[in-house]
């Protein structure tokens, strides 16, 4: 009775003993470990276009190829499926985007295996993401197709993808690359268009390894140099912190440079919804604090001159600016721009002369050339004037009264109807007539070492206007607002500096436009002295009796 269980027990014990003495295993079954958890990626919409279907005609292949331009995944993986294997290796989808107006597209097949696409381009986006408005007219794009295993595939096509404007705005988004003005005081945005997927990587790459847009090149500086390149073309975002890996030479950079780099990255990536940035070298965080940059915000209240007061309009009261208001009121003003310090204003009288109005000093007439456009003030209190008839005669008049002639400012322009310096003092926008059509242009301001403006950089077309522009003002840092008339109707155009603008119907008789801190903060004044503010898609009459709607260039420090 007792013997058998004892034997079993002994055998079990022996087995256990042997197991126990065997130590850790050197082989064993395959075991399931932890489930692979995906870190939450970006929640942007990613389009998944369809690949080529079996037996598709050349036209269908080209149509599918164009539609697949929205699928940015894996370097336009889907679009590549429409190509022959040979062409796949040479086609560069990232070379650029041709944006065309939706609906204005025609396909023709002049010969078998050849497709000609005719579109009305709206803009092109180059490899750096810069958005260039296209001129009028249509362009044709040729495709050559070959049979690959009895299926048509594209053997020849231009680099880059082709998207209609609506899809472009879903697949691409504009991001601001932040550069410094040469004084390292202001951040100057450079608007670029990137696919929304992995935006952080694209932004960081463009900022760190790229260069400012050519038109800005002489007007901005970047803390990034060749010493601090991206170590990998990937900027993962972990818990809201973008991790930008830099080459190890970045360790040798001075703290001030690192701080500026940090500032640029942080501000640039903030546009992609990433609140924090770490600069890493070999997975170690570089310590850097963002530097203080001068704000370009303005008072959100409209600055108006009424019959008896000059100041900020709060409700129905006009809150005067200490000291400056009296000085402004002492002159007869038709256009006013107040400098960021609020101790100086450029005032144009109804006769067209431009005065410098300063606190504690008598207004001085600085320019009395005929036909001057409304004057504009930059960050160093230079007052920029130009006669509307001679766009090349741009003059920046310093506080000492000396004229700095900006030679060859707007070449090719026959007329200038408005000109405004941006609040960061690095860019200048103008409504010009080049040829027959009025258009909106922007250019960088090139300054010497003392900050004295010496020239304008390469000018850049932002928009072609259907009618003559009347008022022009900087909205926020990346957009301009101006009014124009088209076919007897008045529109207000909000135009980003590098991107498609949006026009909005406005009350007739607009004379002045003043910007806000964000799109939609635009104020208008009509000939009757009514002040309008934007309320969604309509305009609300906010105040009457406004003689002059002044523009602001910032707030005092």
């Amino acid at each position, binding site marked *: 009775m007792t013997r058998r269980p004892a034997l079993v027990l002994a055998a079990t014990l022996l087995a*256990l003993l042997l197991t*126990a003495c065997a*130590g850790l295993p050197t082989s064993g079954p395959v*075991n399931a470990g932890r*489930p692979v958890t995906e870190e939450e990626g970006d929640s942007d919409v990613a389009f998944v276009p369809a690949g080529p279907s079996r037996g598709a005609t050349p036209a269908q292949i080209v149509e599918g190829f164009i539609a697949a331009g929205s699928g940015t995944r894996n370097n336009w993986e889907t679009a590549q499926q429409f190509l022959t294997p040979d062409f796949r290796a040479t086609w560069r989808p990232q070379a650029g985007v041709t944006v065309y107006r939706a609906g204005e597209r025609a396909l023709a097949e002049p010969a078998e295996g050849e497709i000609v696409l005719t579109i009305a381009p709206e803009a092109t986006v180059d490899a750096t993401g810069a958005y260039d408005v296209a001129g009028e007219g249509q362009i044709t794009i040729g495709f050559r197709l070959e049979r690959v295993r009895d299926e048509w595939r594209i053997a020849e096509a231009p680099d880059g993808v082709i998207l209609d404007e609506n899809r472009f705005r879903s697949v691409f988004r504009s991001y601001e690359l932040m550069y410094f003005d040469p004084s390292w005081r202001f951040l100057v945005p450079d608007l670029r268009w990137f696919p929304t997927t992995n935006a952080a*990587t694209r932004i960081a790459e463009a900022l760190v390894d790229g260069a400012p847009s050519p038109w800005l090149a002489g007007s901005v500086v970047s803390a990034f140099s060749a010493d601090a390149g991206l170590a*990998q073309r*990937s*900027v993962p975002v972990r818990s809201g912190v973008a991790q930008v*890996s830099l080459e190890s030479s970045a360790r040798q950079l001075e703290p001030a440079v690192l701080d500026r780099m940090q500032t640029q990255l942080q501000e640039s990536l903030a546009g992609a919804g990433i609140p924090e940035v770490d600069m890493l070298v070999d997975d170690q965080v570089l310590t850097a604090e963002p530097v203080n940059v001068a704000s370009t915000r303005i008072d959100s209240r409209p600055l108006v001159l009424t019959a008896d007061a000059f100041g900020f309009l709060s409700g129905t009261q006009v809150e005067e600016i200490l000291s400056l208001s009296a000085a402004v009121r002492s002159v007869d003003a038709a256009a006013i721009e107040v400098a960021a310090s609020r101790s100086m204003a450029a005032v144009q009288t109804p006769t067209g002369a431009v005065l410098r109005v300063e606190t504690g000093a008598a207004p001085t007439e600085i320019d009395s050339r005929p036909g001057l456009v409304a004057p504009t003030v930059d960050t160093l209190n230079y007052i920029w004037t130009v006669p509307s008839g001679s766009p090349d005669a741009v003059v920046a008049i310093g506080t000492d009264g000396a004229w700095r002639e900006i030679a060859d400012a707007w070449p090719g322009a026959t007329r200038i109807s408005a000109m405004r310096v941006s609040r960061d003092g690095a860019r200048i926008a103008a409504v010009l007539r080049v040829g027959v059509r009025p258009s909106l242009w922007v250019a960088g301001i090139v300054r010497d070492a003392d900050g004295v403006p010496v020239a304008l950089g390469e000018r850049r077309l932002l928009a072609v206007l259907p009618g003559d522009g009347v008022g022009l003002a900087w909205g926020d840092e990346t957009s301009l607002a101006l009014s124009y008339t088209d076919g007897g109707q008045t529109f207000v155009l909000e135009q980003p500096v590098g991107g498609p603008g949006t026009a909005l119907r406005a009350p007739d008789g607009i004379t002045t436009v003043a910007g806000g801190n964000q799109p939609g903060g635009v104020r208008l004044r009509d000939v009757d002295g009514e002040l309008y503010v934007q309320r969604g898609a309509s305009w609300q009459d906010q105040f009457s009796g406004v003689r002059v709607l002044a523009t602001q260039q910032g707030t005092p420090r």
Partner: protein
Amino acid sequence: MSPTSTATHAVVADWRDVRAWPRRIALAWRRSLRFRTLALTLGLTALTILVALVWMALAIQNDLFESRIQQVQSAASRATQSAQTTLDAAVVESDTLALQNLMDRVRTSMSRQAATDMIAAFRISDQPSSTAPQDFEAGGLTADMLTSGLRQTVRRDAGTQWWQSIGIPADDGGHAPGVVIGQQLILPEAGAYEVYFAYELGSEAQTLQFVQVTLWGVGIVLVVLIGAVSWFVLRSVTVPIAQAAETSAKLASGDLGVRLPVQGEDEFATLGRSFNAMADSIEAQIKELAELSLVQQRFVSDVSHELRTPLTTIRLASDMLNDQRAAFDPTTARAAELLHAQVQRFETLLTDLLEISRYDAGSVQLENEATSLAHLAEDVIASMQQLADQHGTDVRLVAPGGYSPVDMDPRRVRRIVRNLLGNAIEHGEGRPIVVTVDSNQEAVALGVRDFGLGMSEADAERVFDRFWRADPSRKRTIGGTGLGLSIALGDARLHGGTLEVWSELGRGTNFVLTLPRQGAGLRGTPPIPADPGDDGIPSDDLGMTQPLDLSDLAQGGRP
């Protein structure tokens, strides 16, 4: 020391003979309480400790292994997840160099985060790709260390990590325990890769070994200590028990003087005191009885002696009266004759009593001389011939052996034979009596067989009792005192021999005297069995109808 320990020592002395071990152990197990208890204690303790140690060793090993597995899983998971995040965020745009650079950095980063150098990655898809980075093996982890089962599982199931125990080649050519963790990593524009992280568990193995060695060391020391403690404790218990056993054995063998030493007041002291009291009591009673018996014997001896002197006088007087009885009137003459006969019988009785009392007192000495039992029997038969003739009994001697002289007291042996023969003649109913003498290597024997009435079994058992007679009414013709057989038995025992009786009603009686040669004690089969068996002579046929055909026996008995 006690007999037990002596036995143990004897066992130990022969331990060198390995083949004898099982028998020795079995012997020790049966005989030695201490060995059995010690063996049981040690065995059960060792078993308990073994179970505990195995359990502990297993628990520790399991915990060590599990915790390390969890740790490396977590590390590998973290590393892969981080790498995947980096890869997901990459913008490669078909730049082979950039992708390769990214892969290199991801590998370095994974190695750092997973805390292992042994990393390998293999592209799952076999479709040619110009951009896909090459597979790599780093830190000594090679593809042939991975089982195909693991690789297939990793390729098939991307949703989970997979791990497997592997042996990592060590410097000495052996394999160190290790674990490999595999999962998938998706590269942009290149597809999925299997990534493996290998970890060596050398330090865990060392820890485990240390723990195990410590455990077993502690276990062995524990068993030895418990054995020693048990030995000492058992010694304190078994030594008194062994003493008690030895003392009881001595007491049982008649040594009434032995006593247990008594120390302290514990249970053993109580046992010792009780035992000693019991031994005292037994000794006292036995002494008392012995003294009583001595007094009785002395009394009988004294009475016999005291009676002898007056009896001698009475006998002389009765002899004189008997000699002159012719001068008396017939009545007086008859009285004198009776007196003479009874006095003679009285004297014989007294002689027998004295002889018996001498046996009882143990004061009998043998006067041995070499004697041939056959010749002695012949003499006795001749001397009893007259009595036999009176009863008409034919006495025959059958002696196949027994002629060689054997040391014996001839006077006493003769008395025995005479007594037996006398009884046979008296109870033989006139039928022949056969006297058999025979011998073997150990003994000589003499049997006296009559074919008389015989006795019942109960009577036969009492035949040697003093003053006992089978039939009280039976007439004594040769003046037996009732002590003859008792004396004969005493004489036989004095020689170291036996006197046995066989009797059956209607078949007669057989007495067999067996005497050892050289006084060496009796062993083996006696020369003549007491039970004659079926000798083929029915009692009814004896003597009455035809002469007994025993001539051959008689002739054999008389060479």
